């Protein structure tokens, strides 16, 4: 068996794997990173889906990436350029102008005041509350959760520190945070706003990539994890120039710069276990790499049920992972457009530059009830009759992604349940494009005529092309019982796997709410002391 046993092995060069590799390298423990695909990035990849048209295929937007990773990895020095949209969310209306939620807080409040002066006031209040809470939520995201199964010694200390940072918010905001976290996001949205599209804009973040509806308890926590660190009810839209693949490439450079070795087109077939601890990995083709430490960026089901021999796991762990909910509920529709779609009531500007409203998230799904109904269909194994669409037009900010004058439109479509009660995904793929265009026609009439071509990723495609079990982009449903200390499974929720030497660093760990890099950051922090102990 080749390799230095002390050199850690990272399975998968997704954003979290690369972030973990960077932090380990920085501390003199650079790993070897093994990636199945020909390029790094995992779900954060830019691909040419039609000649001349490129899109961020699975993750259309960055989480945004957690501030500490951005600062530490100095990605600008590795060629990354961030583009920030002047608009965070655009809520088009079939009738008129819709609502444009600007990144600038005052401009945003003024726009909200146009539809509801009361809501503008509430927006300011919610913003002030979230700004005050931001340090706590940044801490929640960027630190390892206390291991609740063992609340003694250091874990109790960890919990106490977390409690202290919560107390530091002051009694009012502390109570607010505790009350908000387990709530259904629909209730929080109605506390914040009276205007239905604004409520829906809030609710949609709470259910993004979940198999939950806005009335499901715990969805407010999902929202808060995404927005509270940024101190605003609507998180900023910050994308890498060149699509998400550019982020991954910059991270790969940063990791290499600190000594990480990244190998692509090598597929890990098995994580080897000897005498009850990790011994290395076996690659497809027979090569074996020895290593006492394996950090898996693959999803927990793939890691524990496919890469590891089940005989090495206790029945308790096997039972837990078999009940881990990892069926995805969303699909992606990428459309190449011959021109910019014209949304009703929106000043389209000149043909060469897109109106700012189109540079953020464009949300189709105007009421909380509509989102809930979309979820109802998924409960019974149907594609939503009126799915919620989160549309981005990446070319509005970054024209380099398409030939001149042409555009790319990416629609996140929810719900499209992994397991269909009738039919299969191969025969339903085209339905997803049709329903997307049908819905968009209500807001941007004539869009169908601009279609040059399209590429649809069903949950089955997400599974087969991107190694996502169940087609779930978050590596497993992010609901209260699969969250925080219990993510992915109880007693193994703090980046440490159930076998000595095995760690998790993917989205199947806390926080797991999109491309933030926080899982990789936290995982590296847990691995490093163990490496030092083992190495000495």
């Amino acid at each position, binding site marked *: 068996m080749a390799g230095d046993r002390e050199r850690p092995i990272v399975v998968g060069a997704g954003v979290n794997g690369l972030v973990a590799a960077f932090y380990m390298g920085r501390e003199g423990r650079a790993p070897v990173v093994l990636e199945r695909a020909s390029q790094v990035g995992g779900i954060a990849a830019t691909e040419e889906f039609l000649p001349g048209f490129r899109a961020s295929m699975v993750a259309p937007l960055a989480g945004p990436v957690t501030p500490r990773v951005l600062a530490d990895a100095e990605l600008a020095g590795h060629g990354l350029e961030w583009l920030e949209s002047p608009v965070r969310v655009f809520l088009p209306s079939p009738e008129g102008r819709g609502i444009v939620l600007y990144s600038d807080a005052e401009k945003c409040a003024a726009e909200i005041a146009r539809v509801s002066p009361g809501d503008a006031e509430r927006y300011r209040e919610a913003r002030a509350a979230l700004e005050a809470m931001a340090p706590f939520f940044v801490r929640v995201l960027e630190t390892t959760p206390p291991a609740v199964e063992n609340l003694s010694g250091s874990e109790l200390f960890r919990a106490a520190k977390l409690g202290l940072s919560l107390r530091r918010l002051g009694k009012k905001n502390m109570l607010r945070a*505790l009350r908000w976290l387990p709530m259904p996001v629909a209730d929080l949205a109605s506390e914040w706003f009276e205007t239905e599209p604004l409520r829906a804009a809030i609710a949609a973040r709470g259910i993004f990539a979940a198999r939950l509806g806005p009335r499901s308890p715990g969805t407010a926590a999902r929202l808060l994890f995404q927005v509270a660190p940024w101190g605003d009810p609507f998180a900023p839209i910050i994308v890498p120039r060149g699509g998400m693949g550019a982020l991954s490439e910059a991270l790969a450079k940063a990791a290499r710069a600190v000594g990480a070795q990244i190998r692509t087109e090598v597929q890990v077939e098995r994580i080897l276990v000897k005498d009850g601890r990790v011994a290395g990995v076996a690659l497809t083709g027979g090569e074996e790499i020895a290593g006492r430490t394996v950090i898996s960026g693959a999803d927990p089901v793939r890691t524990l049920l496919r890469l590891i021999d089940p005989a090495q796991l206790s029945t308790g762990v096997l039972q837990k992972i078999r009940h881990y909910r990892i069926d995805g509920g969303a699909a992606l529709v990428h459309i190449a457009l011959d021109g910019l779609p014209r949304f009703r009531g929106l000043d389209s500007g000149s043909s060469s530059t897109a109106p700012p409203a189109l540079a953020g998230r464009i949300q189709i799904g105007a009421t909380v009830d509509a989102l809930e109904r979309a979820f109802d269909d998924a409960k019974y194994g149907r594609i939503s009759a009126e799915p919620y669409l989160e549309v981005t037009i990446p070319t509005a900010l970054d024209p380099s992604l398409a030939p001149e004058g042409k555009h790319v439109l990416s629609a996140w479509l929810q719900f499209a349940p992994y397991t269909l009660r009738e039919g299969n995904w191969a025969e339903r793929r085209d339905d997803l494009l049709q329903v997307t265009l049908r819905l968009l026609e209500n807001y941007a009439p004539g869009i169908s005529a601009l279609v040059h071509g399209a590429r649809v990723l069903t949950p089955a495609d997400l599974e087969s092309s991107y190694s996502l079990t169940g087609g779930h982009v978050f590596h497993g449903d992010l609901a209260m019982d699969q969250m925080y200390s219990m993510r992915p499974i109880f007693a193994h929720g703090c980046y440490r796997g159930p076998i000595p030497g095995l760690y998790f660093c993917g989205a199947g760990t806390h926080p797991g709410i999109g491309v933030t890099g926080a899982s990789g950051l936290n995982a590296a922090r847990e691995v490093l002391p163990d490496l030092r102990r083992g190495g000495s």
Partner: protein
Amino acid sequence: MAESYDVVVIGGGHNGLVHAAYLARAGRKVLVLESRPVLGGAAVTEEIVPGFRFSVFSYVVSLLRPEIIRELDLVRHGLEILPLDGTFTPLEGNYLWRVDDPMRTRREIARFSALDAEAYEDFGRAMVRICRFVRPMLGTPAPDPTRISWGDFEQLLWLVRRWQGIDAGDKFLLAQLGTSSAIDFLDRWFETDPLKATMSASGIIGTFLGVRSPGTAYVLLHHYMGEIDGTFRAWGFSRDGTGGISRSIAGAAAEAGATIRTEARVARILTRNGRAEGVALESGEEIRAKTVSSSLDPRQTFIRLLEPRDLPAEFLEEVGRYKFRGSSGKVNLALDALPDFTCLPGVGRHLRGAISISPSVEYMERAYDDAKYGRFSRQPYIDMVIPTLTDPQLAPPGKHVMSCFVQYAPYHLAEGDWDSRREAFGDAVIDAISRFAPNIRKIILGRQVLTPLDIERIVGLSEGNIFQGELSPEQLFFQRPVGGWARYRTPVSGLYLCGSAAHPGGGIMGAPGRLAALEILRQAPIKGVS
């Protein structure tokens, strides 16, 4: 203004009466004021159809705290609990029957799945262990993480130490019960769909959630928390209906010297300089008291009985956000004969327990879907009991009363109002029953349909919520009813809450009434000794 009391208790429901009994026994001069002619609040027995006596609202009991039964000597005051024999779930061409005989239940479940029959016993044992762990918390006030007092800190440490003392498997179960949906929790144990559907029903009762909504496993646990291994086994009937419970508590309170008045509706809580100093009745009569305890819910107490200026604006805002969202109704039937179920015809032991219309998980979930958009369930979940098979005196010889708890019936209807939809709702319930017991229509001598609006009007439970507010995670423990105000006190000095809206919540449990009394007496135990 002649009379003056140490404590005046608003509301003569079971919690108000428990509260009064404890205070009177400690030597306080106590007055209980009940607006209705009958004591008991939602635990009352009334003759709705001539000759037929109904537990009009709540209809079964298991949660009543054993320390209350013991300390108030309720058995001597007439409390008698009769066994409720299992749960029968009729299905199309089949049935699922769990009965108070473990071997028989095992055989019945094994007809569906041998694995489930095995798991059912493990599940029962696990729930007993979990309830033993959680139970002491029902006898203590909730620890408040927002306070820094030594007592709170000590209590948190006590909880942590208890947590450290249980094994890993039980920790996992507790964590699941706190965060999962009822179905996700049950999925880990069982594969039989009607079994999961019927068991999950306890997870939604009194909430506006579905069996797949996260958080409902906690409500399931709440319903399991009856005295499983004590004086009673599981659920039971009170002799002479749930009014019998209220009467026994009232007897204990009266014997200890409490004065109890019915048809005395409180119109206002009197305050001066931020202190409660009595109540004014609708008759105009004013009654002075050093302490006022309200067993009513927060909306009734803080919004109806107080002026906005009596309370801090922030507190009022929180009260305004408190979620009631009544989701259930009740249909009481006077029957000429017994219902005859197609899947198990004839009169048998299966009719003596709970009869659950919960044929599948999808049936339960679809019932919730209707409610989400403001309709009563076209095919509702129904929990039926026929108490006359156990306690024949409730109806004339040979006749029966049947009590049907129905969910979902949302308080806010999208179309029409409850006064015009009441009978349509009743019809939907009868339709759902007749699908399994077609003779039901022919044997009905009288029916009473209670919508959430009726429950609000008659008993004063806001929005008809049977728990005085949803048992959702943000409304439990130190956040019940309002964060930082879970210790029975209120911003008005001398005003206490002693009803189900206070920790640990609803059901015929009596714990809030007792704990609030101990708080007033300043004898509240810090640890789980009861």
